[in-house]
């Protein structure tokens, strides 16, 4: 499986990133190198092997559903790039 500039453009769009032509060329080469390396996984026989999404014991961790105070609004908004009247301000989303 070889990555093309077109693939890089498509993946960049999914990842919400943009690159100039030179960067696209560079990422295409680097991704091909890395994917060439990971290709070795195809030689491992994994028929009938279960997947492991975690290192060990994947169990649900449940707790009592109690009402607790959440973070202070003003304090959280201090990190927002733009805010107004206690809300995070964003550009118009609906035309």
């Amino acid at each position, binding site marked *: 499986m070889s990555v093309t500039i077109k693939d890089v453009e498509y993946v960049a769009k999914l*990842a919400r990133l943009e690159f100039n032509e030179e960067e696209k060329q560079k990422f295409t080469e680097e991704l091909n190198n890395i994917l060439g390396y990971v290709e070795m996984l*195809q030689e491992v026989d994994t028929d009938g092997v279960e997947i492991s999404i975690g290192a060990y014991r994947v169990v649900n961790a449940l707790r009592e559903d109690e009402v607790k105070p959440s973070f202070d609004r003003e304090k959280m908004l201090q990190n927002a790039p733009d805010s107004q009247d206690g809300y995070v301000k964003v550009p118009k989303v609906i035309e």
Partner: protein
Amino acid sequence: MHTKTLHEVKELINKKEISCVELTKSTFDRISKVDDKIGAYLQLDEEGALKKAREVDEKIQRGEETSFLAGIPMAIKDNICVEGLKTTCASKILENFVAPYDAHVTKKLKENDAVIIGKLNMDEFAMGSSSENSAFKKVKNPFDLERVPGGSSGGSAAAVAAGEAYYTLGSDTGGSIRQPASLCGVVGLKPTYGRISRYGLVAFASSLDQIGPFTKDVEDCAHVLNVIAGHDSMDSTSAKVEVEDYTKYLNQDIKGMKIGIPKEYFAEGLNPEIRGIIENGIEVLKKLGAEIKEISLPMSKYALAVYYILASSEASSNLARFDGIRYGFRAEDFEDVVDLYVKSRSQGFGDEVKRRIMLGTYALSAGYYDAYYKKALKVRTLIIQEYKKAFEEVDVILTPTSPTVAFKLGEKSNNPLEMYLSDIYTVPINIAGVPAISIPAGFVDGLPVGMQLIGDYFKEGTLLKVSHAFERETEFTKVKPSI
């Protein structure tokens, strides 16, 4: 004073030979003397640190019982939150982010009256093996300023090695504690996945990330682990496994313990001088009565490939939250909301972070998910099984920590794949989720070499027991850089 260990300065405080304020001031003096050259710190909090030190001095004067860590200066990697201080992850995208809360480990340290003196430099979002990926400045190795300290927790390792803190915290996703510990000649522990809460650690790869301590010796490591280990309801992956008093593993006999040597870790690519040092280390343990057994972990060769698929996939998902909306950097000129995301992310993230997001997004995209992501998860199962089986036969597995000593700045920065190979001996441990420690085992041309000991799940105590026996028999932790 700066060459002393945590337990040594603790003794001086107990004997009232030094006050916590004096100790804290001397640490800031040390930082102002050497950190221009080292670059370990991104932020200092002298005022907060001195305030805490004074409080502890008053407690001592009143004759109150204090914690082992009370009044002693330490610092924290800049991807772990300390309320009121910046948490930048060494990234432009979080350059002005002020943590609105404490991480679980920070809370534990504060409850134990630790003196937090600042935040430590790192590879951006913990992605890298040299700390050259920091958006702000590079960290230098205290043993040779032309060389890297390793990464991603390079600031945490260098600060301890250079005497700029008595201990530090870092995070380890694929070797980010153990590899810099090895390259800087200090002790670094990556505990079992789930041993320490990740609440307040900025997520890179959630199924692999773990917080751990950097210390000057093994004894100190046990004391720090005692405080930061334990279950936390804010991290659903933190384990409800009892926290032992890890100091009980110090000064123990290791006679009859079984130590496994996996032959795959001594194959091609290992620097022959490092091989010699590790073989000497094996001899030391043999002399102490340990039983040495050759074992085989054939799946190890696939671990790095599994790691780069899984870590990048998880990172691409975790880092989607940095979009310029609720916090972090927002680009100035944009056309609409999507353009705001794209421009903020493209201007805010550095190259290596983009590379991993791209790789992860590709591996998770339609058509490739089964071939890459799912395949990697299956091979992960095989790696886990292999470690479980090995620990039926041996108590500890011994390997080199890194295939090379500290390399020159810039030496590997243009070849991502070569940089990734720095982690070849450390990544399998994160995939399996078991604990591992790197301890100083010798020097090649004046540069430190670390030995890695790997344990079964939640057997940090066993690692400390063997490490401490090795440390008592050797003098490597006592060698300090001349800076």
